């Protein structure tokens, strides 16, 4: 790999790792607070998976020369985080969290599917392992989104409003990052635009089947989006919601800066 490719790969890994870490953090906010015990357990379980994926990506990044995972996670300021603004949004009601997870895991499934054929072998191996877990996320999320979208009038309204609100944010998952074209040319990573198209093809018909109105319409073979994507995360621009997460994470370490181990 050339130096430029390594830099681009590190940038992409940081985007993915930060997405996984931040959404894992948000999901764990349901631990002990779920609407039913079974969902409490499911969200805790998926949160651990996402944090585990984050650890996998951070570890790979570390092997490419970056700091160790804990240093990366616990010492960076918000502007150094590359997660999409989507993942840092507050957990909201259960409809919002469930819809976010559905949209996010749909994107992750597409991305990992593409990375499973990456020319960079360590990334390929990691993606194959993660995909196995994502299969369960997908089954869980699709089951619940369908049931809640078709359940009662209230649940339908909540799911619709979650979808309408979340959709522009979700598009931010496909925001271009620096060096993307180098990785695409080398067969290391898929083009974000390609992922976005596959994601729209996967998600939009399903959501319509569940009776929800998607902020997009068919245009020939493609889906044309009727909402402006919320971008910025991949360039280190964030909402204040990320600050809240990072503040909490820094509390113990900043109270005792001499402590080496926790």
């Amino acid at each position, binding site marked *: 790999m050339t130096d430029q490719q390594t830099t681009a790969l590190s940038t992409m890994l940081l985007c993915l790792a930060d997405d996984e*870490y931040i959404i894992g*953090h948000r999901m*764990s*906010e349901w*631990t*002990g*607070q*779920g*609407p*039913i*015990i*079974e*969902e*409490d*357990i499911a969200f*805790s*379980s998926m*949160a*651990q998976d996402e*944090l*585990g994926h*984050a*650890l996998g990506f*951070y570890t790979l990044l570390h092997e490419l020369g970056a700091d160790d*995972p*804990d240093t990366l*996670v*616990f010492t960076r300021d918000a502007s150094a985080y590359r997660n999409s603004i989507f993942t840092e949004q507050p957990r909201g*009601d*259960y409809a919002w969290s469930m819809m976010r997870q559905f949209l996010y895991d749909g994107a992750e499934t597409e991305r990992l599917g593409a990375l499973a054929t990456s020319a960079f072998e360590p990334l390929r191996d990691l993606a194959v392992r993660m995909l196995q877990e994502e299969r369960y996320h997908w089954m869980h999320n699709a089951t619940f989104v369908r*049931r*809640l979208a*078709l*359940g*009662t009038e*209230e*649940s339908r309204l*909540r799911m619709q409003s979650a979808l309408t609100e979340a959709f522009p944010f979700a598009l931010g998952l496909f925001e271009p990052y620096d060096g993307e074209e180098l990785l695409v040319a080398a067969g290391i990573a898929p083009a974000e635009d390609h992922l976005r198209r596959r994601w729209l093809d996967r998600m939009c018909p399903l959501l319509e089947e569940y009776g929800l109105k998607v902020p997009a319409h068919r245009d020939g073979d493609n889906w044309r989006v009727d909402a402006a994507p919320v971008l910025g995360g991949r360039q280190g621009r964030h909402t204040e919601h990320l600050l809240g*997460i990072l503040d*909490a*994470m820094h*509390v*113990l*370490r900043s*109270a*005792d800066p*001499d*402590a*080496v*181990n*926790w």
Partner: protein
Amino acid sequence: MTDDELLARFEARIDRGEKIEPGDWMPERYRSGLIRMISQHAHSEIIGALPEGAWIPYAPTLKRKMTLIAKVQDEVGHGQMLYRAAETLGITREEMIDQLLTGKATYSNVFNYPAETWADVALIGWLIDGAAIVNQTKLLLGSYGPYARAMERICFEEGFHLKQGYDAICVLMAGTPSQRAMVQDALNRWWWPIMMFQGPRDKDSVHSAELLRWKVKIKTNDELRQEFLTKFVPKILAFGLVIPDPELRFHEETKEWTFTEPDWDEFKRVIRGGGPMNKERLGVRRLAHESGRWVREALDAFVREGRAA
């Protein structure tokens, strides 16, 4: 068969070490005693998720964060298993949760104290889960089949909780002076709630005798407390920690511990809702329950209207 004959047969089965199963004849007080105990146990797991769960966002490393989520998830899972075990006795999960939220049911007092620092989280994992294991390994031998079987899996998972708590304490005790001080401070605050964890002294315990005969309980509260001390005091002292009870002593000749009695009036006060965190804990549960109502209604409607494929 008369009730006396049924009872004699029931007790003979228990004496032979047989398990009682859901459809079997059982005295009403066995059933109600079990429901009270199992549901209280389930509530303790659900409420017990809160003090540690509150620390998940603050966990100081990736590993600790993932471990803590897994641990709290287990507790919630134990709650689920225990509610199911209790349901085999003719009460629904909804009824039990209602009893919890309306303050009719009780749960372990220990969760009505605040987890003020990160060391509290470590100490809870080590000593409170440790105390729970002392109880629960006995309940494995209990006479009611569904409860005893739930306990097998629960004990297995509690073993992991204990290890992660102990590991966190080890790291803090090998750390900076302020990390060590944080552990000592946690021990100072939690010692007395922990000493009350096994419940009132035998001479003040209202339910014990009959439940012991029927192997709903296996050991008395005092016996469990002694066993906890034997198991954990040496480990606590090995860290160089100071137990805040100058009267705590082991007597070789009787193989028993003597100690300052915890404040049993406080115990009663907290059980009746007067602990530092009772309102907060139930408040969080009530809010979660109310906010989740639309989800439960939607899932019910989906099934009722035959959409479940």
